[in-house]
């Protein structure tokens, strides 16, 4: 048994609106909105690292939870845009939070990293106590690598989210999760060191359109819950059009899918936790589904029930 104790988030202060990208990428603002639902995103400055973003989100999360860093037993940090091969940002993030000596694990995953971190954290909470799951991304450093690709550059932003998983109490109980991976699509969405991100958007959207509704149904079927019974869906904020398609596939009102992609763009692994942190409206006995899909491909869903 494990609970969602609190969420936290951090986004850099610099707002990059669509008009700023128009000249740089040779496209217009209306096109960006129509293909993605994104109006603006945040970019970190040159001095702000993935670790900085992670520390800020984690600090917000621990503050909301009223939990001291010394009371956390394990740290998991997901990031697909960390600045070096090793060490990953987990240990440094933990040390910066005053948790030197606390075990910390890197999840070098992109968009599905926070969902996988939550699912793994829920299992490890019984062994380690409170688990702090953080996802942090500095995608602006990735998309700025030449040659600029407008199809990806319009999408991404920077930010971090965090979730504290508690073995004893919280705002919602983690009921179950379903995780999947299929490496046969690894070449369709990847980021090599020092190369621009490569995304075959048609393949990604086609696969995500099928796999996300399927994994949500798989999870809910195990608990005899129809999708229509879910109060709120908190998804990886990849693309507003994709979120709407998934809602349609599940025959659920799109309004049940919380969305903040218009303001932050796609912050990869961080997006779902930033969304959860902003939404933060758990109610007793109301089921909430988290879901994500990303490079790998990795995808999954997690069911929580308000306490």
């Amino acid at each position, binding site marked *: 048994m494990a609970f969602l104790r609190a969420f936290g988030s951090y986004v850099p202060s610099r707002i990059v609106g669509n008009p700023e990208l128009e000249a740089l990428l040779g496209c217009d603002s209306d096109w960006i909105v129509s293909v993605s639902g994104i109006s603006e995103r945040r970019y970190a400055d040159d001095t702000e690292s993935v670790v900085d973003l992670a520390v800020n989100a984690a600090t917000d999360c621990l503050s909301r939870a009223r939990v001291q860093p010394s009371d956390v037993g394990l740290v998991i940090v997901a990031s697909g845009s960390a600045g070096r091969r090793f060490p990953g940002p987990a240990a440094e993030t933990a040390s910066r939070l005053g948790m030197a000596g606390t075990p910390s694990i890197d999840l070098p995953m992109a968009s599905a990293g926070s969902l996988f971190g939550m699912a793994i954290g829920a299992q490890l909470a019984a062994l380690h106590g409170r688990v702090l799951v953080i996802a942090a991304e500095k995608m602006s450093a990735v998309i700025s690598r030449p040659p600029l690709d407008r199809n990806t550059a319009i999408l991404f932003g920077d930010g971090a989210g965090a979730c504290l998983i508690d073995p004893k109490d919280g705002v919602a109980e983690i009921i179950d999760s379903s995780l999947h991976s*299929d490496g*046969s699509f690894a070449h369709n969405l990847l980021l090599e060191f020092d190369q621009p991100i490569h995304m075959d*958007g*048609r*393949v990604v*959207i*086609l*696969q995500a*359109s*099928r*796999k996300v509704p399927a994994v949500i149904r798989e999870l809910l079927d195990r608990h005899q819950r129809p999708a229509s019974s879910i109060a709120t869906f908190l998804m990886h904020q990849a693309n507003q*059009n*994709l979120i709407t*398609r998934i809602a349609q596939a599940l025959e659920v009102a799109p309004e049940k899918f919380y969305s903040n992609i218009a303001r932050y763009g796609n912050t990869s692994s961080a997006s779902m936790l930033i969304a959860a942190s902003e939404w933060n409206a758990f109610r007793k006995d109301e089921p909430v589904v988290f879901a994500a899909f990303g490079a790998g491909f990795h995808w999954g869903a997690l069911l929580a029930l308000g306490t």
Partner: protein
Amino acid sequence: MISQERIRAVVEKVAQKPIPADPEESLFESGVLDSFALPDMIGELEKEFHLKVPDADLTPRKFDSVARIADYLSVHVS
């Protein structure tokens, strides 16, 4: 034998646009389909031809033109 006319009718229903006369012409390059219309079109093909396209076959290349769709369906529709 899968009728190309049946395929064209499905594609036109989803795209809400006239499709190229040449069955080999790309539905993407001609602007008939975009990334989000593709999953819808495959869903409609599944309904029309009573098949389930497995995830491993979900690649845009297999559904890039009326001719390619016909090739795929001729193998997978009994």
